[in-house]
Every structure is written in C-alpha cells, then in structure tokens.
C-alpha cells in the first residue's frame, strides 16, 4: 500500500485520510492472479454482477410494490401493465434470480472440481456456503411477495418444515407466520427480510473477497503460486476477461428476459393466493428441486427435514471429507469421473423433485439421495487413500513457458505471454 504514488493533490488528500485508492490499487489492479485461470473462473465475478443487478432492479420494483395480502397481487400486475418499463424491471428481477443461481451453482461446481475448498481456502469455502444459504432464503422470501398460489403454498410448505422440530416446532411456525396461517403479517415480514438479506449477502461477498485476497485464487492446476512468473496483475488481464464474460452472460440472460420471460416460472403463480385451495401439484423453484427431492425421499417428516438440511450442511465438511492432497480434479483420474457422476446425480434429484410422487419416482429419488450422501461421506474420504494421482507440474508457469519455470528468466517476459 505504501507503494501508492500520485501527483493528484485531491487524491493525495483523500488517501492520507482514507487509504481507499491504495486499497483499490492493491486489490483490484495489482492483485497478483494465477496466469492460467480458465473461463470457469469467470463465474465469481458474474455472480457479483448479478447481485448488483438484483439489488438495483429490486430497489426500483419496491417503489411500486405493496406488501399487503389484498393488494400485493394487483400491485405486481400494475407493475407489469402500467408502470413504465415495469415489465422489464420485473422480468429482469425474476429471471435474474434464476440466473444468479445458475451462476452460483457453476461457481460451486468449479470449486468442487478444482478442489478450491482445500487448505488454505476452507474459510473462503465456508463464507461461500453462507452466501449460498442467504441466497436460498432470499429467493424463497422473494417468491412469496407476488402473492400468487405458488407464493402462498410455497410459503406454507416451507414454513411448515419447522413444525417437524419436536416440542417447539409448532410455536416456531406460529412465530414465523405472526398468526395461525400464512397471512398478512407473514407477507409483511417476508418483504422486510427480502429487502434486508441482499445487503447481508453484499457484506458476506466482501468477507468472501477478503478471504480470497488473503489466500489468493486457486487455479486449474490446483498448485500454489511459486514465483511472480506464475501470476499476472488482475488489471487489465482479468478485468477485460471478466468484462467479456459479462457480455456473453448478458446475451444468455436477456434472451430469457425478452423471449421466454416465464420459462422458469410456474403458471399457477398468476392465480391469486387462495388459502382454501392447494394447487394440485406444488413444486418449488427449480433451484431448490434437488433438496426438495431429498426431503420427499425420506418417509418420515422430521427425518426428511433433517436430510434436506444435511444435504447442504455436508458441504461445510467437504474440506475434511476429501482426503486427497491433490487439489485439482485434472490430476485425479477417478475423482474426475465421479465428479461428473455426482453432477448427474444432482440433475436426477432435480428431475425427481419436479415430478408428482409415484412409487417409481420415489424409488429413483431414494437411490439418488443415498448416492448424494455417499459421494461426500464414503467415496471422497476413501478415494484420496486409494487413488493414484497423476504427477503435478513443477509450477504454474512451467507448462506455459515450456520448461522455463525454474530458470526464472528476466528475458522470459511473462507478462506478454499471458
């Protein structure tokens, strides 16, 4: 930070009192980043971009939304029909939630494939899981606000999960509702929390970045940075790459917003909430489906709820469950295949979660649930002991510079070869 120099008197004046420019210089410009990051490393910054889009569209939606059970549904309809560009703001926001989850799921899977959760990045991983949990809560709360049938019954089913807790469960549910069923008090508090949580996520993202900048980025080889040759400065190399990624992502995102805005939605949510009638087939939003499938696979109420939460919490133990010392899946021939099998298992669970329960579907769901937990609790701990990893390269720059890795050339000019 002391290296920061400026000739601008205003900047110098501010810098002396609040070292904000040197901090930016240090963590967004000079920040030494592994030179070999591939496109899977774009998804963190993409998710950060999406968080900003969600907060921005959300703040403007609130200007026309009414959190009251008698008016909420119609206020959303008014946003769609009468408010200038209201349809755009709402579709950006509702599709944005799905996009945010797609990005974060890819980001998590990236971390799982390349072993980004392993020492010394355990806390970085944990903060990431906290962000993911906060996102799930925020997404659920937000889905209730339009007060359609799926909003109402989704809220009813999810809050009722807590009634599975012995003794205090029913009291907790009444407390969550602020009444004897999901109603106006529930809608009001969900709105309040839906507005609050994104800012909590924002704060957590800073903690995530703080941890990241302390331990530095992992990379596709999963080996440590050994010399300055292994890195390039964040700006302009990764700023431009992230910007390019945002451009590609926007094409994907906006094609839904403009051409298939209800692709991720449920038609039933365009029916106003009716507490006296449950829709024939309730499904949660797609991003909860694998966990919903796990919930339904267990034939016991409390057991189902415990299994569902365990499916997420098991991720916290991943850094210690995976016994292999090699980070990157690239050098682990068996792990690599099992990773894709695990991913396929998640898709199967997602499919099961979307089906009407039938004996066959339930059976598939049970197998997939068992495999999901087996991957974490049996396969990963054992695999590290039996699998023979392929040899790791000497350094990040070695394969790029064709053996020039240890000969550290001043003439190698790594910056220009990136």
């Amino acid at each position, binding site marked *: 930070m002391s290296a920061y120099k400026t000739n601008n008197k205003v900047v110098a004046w501010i810098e002396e009192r609040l070292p904000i420019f040197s901090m930016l210089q240090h963590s967004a410009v000079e920040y030494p980043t592994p030179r070999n990051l591939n496109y899977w490393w774009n998804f963190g910054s993409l998710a950060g971009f999406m968080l900003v889009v969600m907060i921005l569209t959300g703040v403007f939606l609130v200007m026309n939304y009414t959190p009251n059970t008698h008016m909420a549904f119609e206020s959303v309809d008014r946003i769609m029909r009468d408010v200038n560009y209201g349809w755009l703001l709402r579709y950006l926001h509702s599709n944005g939630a799905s996009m945010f989850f797609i990005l974060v799921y890819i980001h998590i899977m990236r971390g799982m494939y390349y072993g980004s959760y392993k020492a010394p990045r355990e806390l970085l991983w944990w903060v990431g899981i906290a962000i993911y949990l906060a996102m799930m809560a925020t997404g659920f709360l937000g889905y209730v606000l339009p007060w359609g049938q799926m909003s109402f019954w989704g809220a009813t089913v999810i809050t009722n999960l807590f009634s599975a807790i012995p003794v205090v469960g029913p009291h907790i549910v009444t407390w969550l509702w602020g009444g004897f069923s999901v109603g106006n008090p529930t809608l009001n508090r969900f709105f309040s929390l839906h507005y609050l949580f994104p800012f909590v996520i924002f704060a957590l993202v800073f903690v995530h970045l703080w941890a990241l900048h302390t331990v530095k980025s992992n990379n596709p080889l999963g080996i440590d940075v050994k010399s300055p040759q292994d890195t390039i400065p964040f700006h302009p190399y990764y700023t431009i790459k992230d910007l390019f990624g945002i451009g590609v992502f926007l094409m994907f995102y906006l094609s839904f917003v403009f051409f298939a805005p209800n692709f991720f939605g449920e038609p039933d949510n365009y029916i106003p909430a009716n507490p006296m009638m449950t829709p024939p087939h309730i499904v949660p939003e797609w991003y909860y489906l694998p966990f919903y499938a796990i919930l339904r696979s267990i034939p016991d*109420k409390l057991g189902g709820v415990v299994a569902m939460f365990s499916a997420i919490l098991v991720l916290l133990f991943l850094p210690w469950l995976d016994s292999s010392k090699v980070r990157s899946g690239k050098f682990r021939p068996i792990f690599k295949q099992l990773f894709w099998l695990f991913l396929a298992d998640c898709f199967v669970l997602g499919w099961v979660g979307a089906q009407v329960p039938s004996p066959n579907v339930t059976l598939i769901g049970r197998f997939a649930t068992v495999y999901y937990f087996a991957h974490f609790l049996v396969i990963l701990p054992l695999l590290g002991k039996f699998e023979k990893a392929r040899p790791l390269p000497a350094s990040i720059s070695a394969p790029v510079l064709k053996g020039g890795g240890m000969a550290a050339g001043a003439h190698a000019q790594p910056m220009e070869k990136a």
Partner: protein
Amino acid sequence: MADPASHAQPSTTDGQSRRDFLLYATSTVGVVGTGLALWPFVQSMNPAADTLALATTEVDISKVQVGQAITVAWRGKPVFIRHRTPEEISEARAADNADLRDPQKDAQRVEKPEWLVVIGICTHLGCVPLGQKPTDPRGEFGGWFCPCHGSQYDTSGRIRKGPAPRNLEVPKYAFINDHTIRIG
C-alpha cells in the same frame, strides 16, 4: 502502574481479582441486558392482539345434508365440516382398533357422531387435502387425500397412509344449538 514489579505481590492479585470481578460482572450484565432487550423484537413477531381477537367463527350447518361437507375459514385456515353418513360413522368406529399411527377413538374426535369437524390442513406440510367435493379423490379410506405428498385420512380424519405424522386436528368447537357451531 508506576510501581516496579518487585513491589507487593499480594496487592497485584487483589487488584486482579477485583478487576476480574468487575469484568465478569460488567460482561454478565451486558449479555443478559442485551438478551432481555432482544425479547420485544422476538415477541413482536408473534400473533398480534387483533390477530388473536379474530379467533372464533360461528357456522350455520342447517343446510348441510347427510353425506355433504362444507369448508369454512377459521383463523385463516380451512375447517372441514362433514355431515357423515351412517356408513362413514360405522367405518370410522370399526377402525378404532386398527393399526393407527396416531391412535384415537372416533368418539374422542366428535361432539356428535354425525358431525365431523377437523382443520383441513395436512399435518405433513400444511397443504389442504382433497375430499370435500363428491368428485374429489378421497383415498383408500374414504376420508381425505392430500395431493402434495399423498397422505390419506379416514372418515374420522385420522392418518392412515402417507408421510403425515398426526391425525387432522380437531379444533375447539361447541354446538350453540342444533344448527350452529362456534369454532374457537
């Protein structure tokens, strides 16, 4: 502070234990006080006085014929009132000694055998079971069938099959006269 280290060992420990006491006392008061201050915030989320005030509903049941059922709202929840047929009543009584998950006799669940009053909320995850209309599926036991996760209830509203842990809840109610019920 100006005292050299060699001076008066006992007074140092005295001072430390007094400081320790003050530290613990202050911390305890702080923690307990913060906890107490949180209580109004937590309690504000429980049902408000006006919500509690809406807690009773009176229902006219004179128009409900034998075999028919009506759904009324009580505390924002559906309440099923079914005018049971003699066959339904005998079915319910016959099952009193069956292998029930949540054992209850039919007689414990009704004020008058021909009228079954239960909260129409599945005890699994809170969906409204089907079975009020003649065209609805009623499951294998002639009561209600929950479309969400497939729980099945008998003609006494007892859970017989599926994931729900308990029988449909019987709300507190009383017959004010022969054709009016007060729920709550």
